[in-house]
């Protein structure tokens, strides 16, 4: 299979078909990162479009010695989180739905925690956000995360623990948990 770096080279030479290969390879990944960050399919589609336009416009800044995955991943995270910041909104729980659920209070608390954590995610430094997303959204192991981000496994663990610690503080500060 052709490497990402080779495909980028071809894109920079003006080959339209090469860019289509990049889209085919990474469309689903970018879409899912956006969806899991934003929780909304329409927003995820918008962000995915924006990400690929940015990739196209900035392709000449990509360093071929780094992993393309890491590069597009960071652009996806940044664009998703920029939209989170622009669209901060309250969770609107439908009381009728809750009334039918056997554990409405638990459901409400879980939903509230999810919303708080989505809002807290942009507050993390990008290095901490990256490990959280790769671990929880993409289900990667410490070793895989280390390979993607180019950092030792020990650093992955350390950043993951720090990120969770910070997110946990957000939950406690806003009265969910403890």
């Amino acid at each position, binding site marked *: 299979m052709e490497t990402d770096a080779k495909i980028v080279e071809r894109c920079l030479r003006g080959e339209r078909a090469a860019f289509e290969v990049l889209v085919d390879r990474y469309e689903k990944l970018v879409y899912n990162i956006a969806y899991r960050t934003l929780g909304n399919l329409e927003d995820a*589609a918008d962000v995915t479009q924006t990400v690929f336009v940015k990739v196209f416009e900035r392709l000449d800044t990509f360093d071929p010695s780094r992993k393309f995955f890491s590069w597009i991943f960071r652009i996806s995270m940044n664009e998703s989180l920029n939209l989170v910041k622009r669209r901060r909104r309250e969770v609107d729980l439908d009381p009728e739905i809750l009334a039918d659920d056997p554990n409405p209070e638990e459901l409400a608390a879980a939903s509230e925690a999810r919303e708080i954590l989505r809002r807290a995610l942009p507050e993390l430094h990008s290095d901490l956000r990256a490990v959280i997303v790769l671990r929880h959204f993409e289900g990667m192991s410490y070793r895989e995360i280390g390979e993607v981000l180019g950092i030792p496994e020990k650093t992955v663990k350390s950043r993951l*623990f720090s990120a969770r610690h910070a997110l946990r503080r957000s939950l406690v500060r806003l009265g969910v948990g403890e």
Partner: protein
Amino acid sequence: MIPDKMIEYMNGEIDGTNSDSESAALREFLRSSEEGRRYLEGLRRIGEAFEAPESVEPPPDLREKILASAEGARTRSREGREARRLLPRSGVRSRGGLVFSFAGGALAGILLFSLLTGWIGEEARENEDRLYGTLGFLDMERDHLRPLRFENGPVVGSAWTTVSDGRRVVAIEIGAEEEVTVEVRAGEGRRFTGASFPKAGASRAEIDGERAACAVEGGSCLCVFALEESDESGSPLLLTIAGAAGTIFEDSIRTE
């Protein structure tokens, strides 16, 4: 206070990486620690909140929209280049731009060199005075800037940041029982331009694009890094303090 080892085991429990003996040790600890049980519950909520059952397929028309958007960007770029080609050439300006870039880089280099070596010329002194002036401001405003406070193992201190005179300054006040490294990462699009240590105790400053670091020899020290921001995203900065055995503390310094 939860021991670091137990926090490590709790994270391992969430990630499914604990050995049998580690899980057993954690269970033993949790039996008598309500604080530990609450902490673990908080971690579980994080795992549950971010868990997606499986990947979602993008809508079938998204690929065509992406390619159409990219084609639009390609057209705009070509039109822009064409427009610039038709404008009168401004070779002097572009050469001037290169000269200014080189001079700016040289000035930053001179400043950093003078700060690091203690040699202070007239211009470097003026820049250092500005940093000290900023420090005075920081000193007065510290309590209003929501500093990040930390106390972990051999280190204690606080970190805060503000914009003064058109550039961002990050200050880390640290007391350390052993030699540690202090590192601040600013993220994409931002660049550190200088460092200053008004009190003794720090050395080996490294300024490298989005990363600034120094060694703190133990005792009390104030590290100040100057940042040239090219965006207004308000993204936090990442502070990492590490000792010989690894990371001691890591957290975000808020910028807004």
